[in-house]
């Protein structure tokens, strides 16, 4: 980890890592989609709409995972001044926002046929919508300053403060009366979901994770180059 703190080292390592991340994502996606759309059974209650679960749930998991990573990176930048931490937080934000959007919209598309409604202001849906606004707020605040360091600091504080929303989202279905169903996978007594459905779910979750790492690497490389560009432009201005 400390090794990666050096931007030049990171650029070298990430160049070698990229083809593997691309390959892993495409392979896992192919496998996940095959099982999700063809080989897995329909649900006895939800029939074919259960297939939406294979994009909705992994996206929701990633929405929470990315926010945690973003808040963690922001904390790393604020507390330990890790050189790449701010960049990692900034690079993660749009990816997390994308997954949150996917979770919200696919959830709606699942809710309409199953619950009879596109939306309901229950604790789970509302807190995930708030998560989406937190992502947008982070990105807006980050870009609101001429000095990138100030933008990173301000948005970093927002990211850390907003982290309280993550356990709220997770436990919302336990703490409140919600239309959204309770946890079936990540619970104390193990998953309550059939293996024929658990496997495509886990494959898609892994695919989304490697996708995140792939796009994160691309965006981090771009951030490092942006920093070098600014330095070069400063030299030109002074020279």
């Amino acid at each position, binding site marked *: 980890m400390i090794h990666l703190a050096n931007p030049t080292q990171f650029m070298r390592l990430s160049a070698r890592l990229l083809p593997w991340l691309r390959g892993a994502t495409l392979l896992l996606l192919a496998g996940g989609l095959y099982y999700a759309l063809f080989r897995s059974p329909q649900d006895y209650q939800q029939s074919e709409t259960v297939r939406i679960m294979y994009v909705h749930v992994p996206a929701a998991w990633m929405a929470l995972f990315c926010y945690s990573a973003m808040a963690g990176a922001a904390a790393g930048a604020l507390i330990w001044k890790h050189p790449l931490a701010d960049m990692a937080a900034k690079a993660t934000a749009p990816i997390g926002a994308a997954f949150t959007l*996917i979770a919200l919209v*696919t959830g709606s598309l699942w809710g*309409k046929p199953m619950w009879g409604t596109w939306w309901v202001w229950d604790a789970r849906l509302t807190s995930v919508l708030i998560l989406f606004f937190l992502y947008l707020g982070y990105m807006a605040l980050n870009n609101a300053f001429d000095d990138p360091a100030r933008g990173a600091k301000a948005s970093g504080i927002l990211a850390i403060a907003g982290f309280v929303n993550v356990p709220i989202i997770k436990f919302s279905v336990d703490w409140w009366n919600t239309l959204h169903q309770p946890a079936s996978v990540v619970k104390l007594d193990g998953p309550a979901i059939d293996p024929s459905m658990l496997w495509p779910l886990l494959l898609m979750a892994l695919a989304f994770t490697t996708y995140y790492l792939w796009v994160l690497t691309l965006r981090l490389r*771009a951030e490092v180059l942006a920093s070098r560009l600014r330095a070069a432009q400063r030299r030109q201005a002074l020279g």
Partner: protein
Amino acid sequence: MDQLTSYFAMGGYGGFIWPAYTLTAAVLIGLLVASRRTLTARETELDAIRGTEENETADEA
């Protein structure tokens, strides 16, 4: 052909399932393409500015 049609119908729920998958693909592919484009643009910019710096040093030399 009938099998294909009934598969796409997804028990009557195709109108919800396929948009869900299409949107997911569109968002994820869109983000990937945008990220790649930004990276390439920055690489080009940096090469250009480094090229200028080298030329200036060469001139001074």
